[in-house]
């Protein structure tokens, strides 16, 4: 096989699809639960499908169902959804460095269907490939995740009543398992492991200490900002010390 074939956009796309497969085990249970809760909250399958397609974020979809059924206004729901999704500002600020040579279409497609999970997989890929992230690869990854999220939400809406609660509960934990996996794999590939470990401990400590005082979404953003800033400061100090 020639080198040109190996690096073709189609090959990259296919590799992106393959890279997404392990995360699907995490997407399906959560998407399924999301669809099931939508039905239980009184939404139609079209509305559940539309939310999965256009909003495409589990936490915000759960929040939407909850607020829309308890009499909140559209403005209140929009503000709450904006807060819960603020982490995408950080995630896509990180991802922006890989879109330097991308056109407008690629930037839009790449950003609109980015999620926490695909970000985890993509950042790991970039670390392993000299900070390069081909658009076709990212498209394969993101598109697979997006389509599976839509399918799982609709399947959940259609089949919710068939699953027992204990199984739904265990399946919902798969999301944590996926984030643990992404963190461990990123750590193993890291060039700054000791600093990463410090950053991880600080982020976890902030979340634990803030519990009950600040909302979880704000805590996650605050913990990320503080821990990453401390990591950056330590890295700069260490580099200066070596000079």
């Amino acid at each position: 096989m020639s080198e040109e074939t190996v690096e073709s956009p189609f090959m990259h796309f296919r590799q992106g699809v393959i890279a997404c497969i392990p995360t699907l085990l995490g997407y399906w249970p959560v998407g399924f639960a999301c669809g099931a809760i939508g039905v239980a909250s009184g939404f139609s399958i079209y509305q559940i499908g539309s939310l999965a397609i256009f909003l495409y974020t589990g936490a915000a979809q759960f929040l939407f169902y909850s607020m829309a059924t308890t009499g909140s206004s559209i403005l209140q729901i929009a503000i709450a959804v904006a807060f819960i999704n603020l982490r995408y500002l950080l995630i896509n600020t990180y991802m922006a460095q890989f879109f330097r040579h991308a056109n407008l279409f690629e930037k839009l497609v790449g950003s609109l269907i980015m999620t926490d999970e695909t970000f985890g997989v993509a950042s790991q890929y970039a670390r392993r490939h000299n900070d390069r992230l081909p658009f076709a690869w990212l498209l394969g990854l993101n598109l697979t995740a997006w389509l599976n999220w839509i399918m799982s939400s609709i399947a959940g809406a259609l089949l919710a009543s068939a699953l027992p609660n204990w199984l739904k509960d265990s399946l919902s934990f798969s999301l944590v398992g996926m984030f643990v996996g992404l963190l461990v794999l990123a750590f193993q590939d890291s060039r700054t492991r000791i600093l990463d470990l410090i950053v991880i401990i600080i982020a976890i400590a902030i979340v634990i200490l803030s519990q009950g005082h600040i909302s979880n979404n704000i805590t996650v953003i605050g913990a990320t900002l503080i821990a990453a800033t401390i990591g950056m400061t330590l890295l700069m100090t260490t580099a200066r010390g070596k000079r």
Partner: protein
Amino acid sequence: MITHVGWAIFVVSAVTAAIRALPILFLAQRNFPILVRNWLVFIPPAILSAIIASEVIQRDQTTSFGLSVGILATAVSLIVCAVTKSLFAAVAVSIIAYFIFQNL
């Protein structure tokens, strides 16, 4: 139940799309200074660990011997992933471990 569900879906989707798209649309062409690049290096471990901690502490189920089901299942998943280096294994084991610890 809200009366204009279609409008609500449109508004929340537009807000989320803006949050997702703006950083890449406006920051992609910029050459970040070394300070920002070094800061961005730590965003993935920081945000992933913050999300994990946040998800785990929200689950208050404990085993019959008083330990958190979420923390135990997370620990097992972490060890399995570190050994196997497999994302799939981490996810599969987390589901099984959570189920087992729930019933212990």
